[in-house]
């Protein structure tokens, strides 16, 4: 690099640039907090939805599935599964309940989690709530 460009100039770009963008990021975060009640479907968060999120987490569902595109890529997207299953929570519950304990020979299969009826209702409610989040029309189609 040219001598005219000194180390202290480089250092100032680092300090100045980082500080500016940290502050901008914090500003955008504050603004995001203000705006998301319009898109985050938080009015739909009931006790059962909150419980469902816990069931989702404590069975590590994200270890195979994506949820709004984030997670593992081994099993289908579940952000829109409520819609894909015909807006039916019963269909979601029936699918989870029906998983064979020893899997399906040669194929991927969801484990049997032995969830209680209450947990099944909760996870279905959670997936219904997630389906209602405004995601800028993602995914592109019903297949996720």
């Amino acid at each position, binding site marked *: *690099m040219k001598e005219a460009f*000194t*180390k202290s100039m*480089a*250092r100032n*770009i*680092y300090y100045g*640039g*980082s500080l500016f*963008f*940290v502050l901008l*990021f914090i500003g*955008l*975060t504050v*603004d*995001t907090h203000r*705006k*998301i009640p319009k*898109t*985050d479907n*938080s009015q739909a*968060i009931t006790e059962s*939805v*909150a419980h469902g*999120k816990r069931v989702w*987490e*404590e*069975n*590590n*569902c*994200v*270890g*195979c599935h*994506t*949820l*709004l*595109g*984030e*997670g*593992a*890529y*081994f099993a289908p997207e579940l952000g829109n599964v409520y819609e894909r299953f015909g807006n039916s929570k019963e269909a979601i519950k029936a699918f989870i309940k029906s998983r064979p*304990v*020893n*899997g*399906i*020979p*040669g*194929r*991927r299969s969801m*484990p049997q989690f032995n969830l209680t009826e209450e947990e099944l209702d909760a996870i279905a409610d959670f997936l219904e709530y997630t389906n209602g*989040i*405004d*995601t*800028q029309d*993602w*995914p*592109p*189609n019903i*297949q996720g």
Partner: protein
Amino acid sequence: MTYQSQAVSKLYFMAAIGLFVGQILFGVILGLQYVIGDFLFPAIPFNVARMVHTNLLIVWLLFGFMGAAYYMVPEESQRELHSVKLAKLLFWVFLGAGVLIILGYLLVPYAKLAEMTGNSFLPTMGREFLEQPTIGKIGIALVCAGFLYNIAVTVLSGRKTVINMVLLTGLLGLVLLWFFSFVNPENLVLDKYYWWWVVHLWVEGVWELILGSLLAFVLIKTTGVDREVIDKWLYLIIAMALITGIIGTGHHYFWIGTPSYWLWFGSIFSALEPIPFFMMTLFAFNMVNKRRRDHPNKAATLWALGTGVMAFLGAGVWGFLHTLAPVNYFTHGTQITAAHGHMAFYGAYVMVVLCIISYAMPKLRGRVANSNKAQVVEMWAFWMMTVSMVFITLFLTAAGILQVYLQRMSETPLPFMVVQDKMAFFYWMREVAGVIFLLGLIVYLVSFFIKGETEKAPKLVRDPAAFESQ
């Protein structure tokens, strides 16, 4: 090795390599489960193997960073480490906690593990990469804080260089951002929003400071280039990393229920994220070209150049490939993401840790560099792992393109599992490449046990002053 206390880094490097082996073994299992769906089911279901694979990666990279810091900081600060005892104690605590967490994943159903560790008191489990039980997360926080204290006292009371100050800043950021792993609101959008403050702001933020500092250290040592020049590069690289990377977090805020302006912020800033990585490539090649000594450790120089190139390809090019919102709309959450993740982690963080290990380990074992014979074997390992990682990435990219087309772009979009069957060919090819990576890793391990004659001191190239301690 100039300072006695540097020796503690050897423990950390050995643990890092050991856990790396575990990570790759589980990677090969996962690759097979993609094509033989019931492989090891229900004993080790996919989600468990994946947790082990990703968590081992994070833990061994942290071991690598810690080892690197314990090796570099005394030399940079020109004093012994504040406390070797603390470094040793934290090592065993961290290793014990890490092993317990992994065994917990493998031996107990995850829901049971959550119950046993009292997840309901402070629920933090079950989120990608942050699957550790809450108590484990607290343990990681304590170990990292203790480590940071040890490093900070050493740095602040010794010679302050750009390299050790940047390293310290990066480590401080690492520890502070970890606290967001405890933030888990009921609101899924906010949960995801802050989850990225750990995941993105680590790997596309503060970890780049650590990466830059490690790379700069090895380049100073192996090339003898003037510190002023190296420092200037380092400042510019990390400046660009933070200027692009912080707002670049926005490329994760496209489709999770956040305001639409993130489509613009995320696209524009993350499109600039390749810049710091490209500068790293230029940096590494420039310094090696301008070298004032021919360091006998050719392998370390190769890793340094490799880090520059592969970090740019994996993080820079493969990141850019799917970061613009109109593209990401179709590729989000597909094998394209997996392709990028693999080469980015390998190219940036795996390689820089192997680079510092390559430089430091011979010194820790009492020689300037390994014998020529050992280095040749290490370089074989470099090429086997690096080339097979390129192929893993290419096959996953091919799989991803097929997936995006069949599932999201064709006139009659097919269901996920139907598409997965059609991608099997590429998954098989990826598995073959994965096995070659494992073979490369075995060759790497073997290189540590190869004897032969070793050189004592670096050969001069141009300037005798280069010998002076830099």
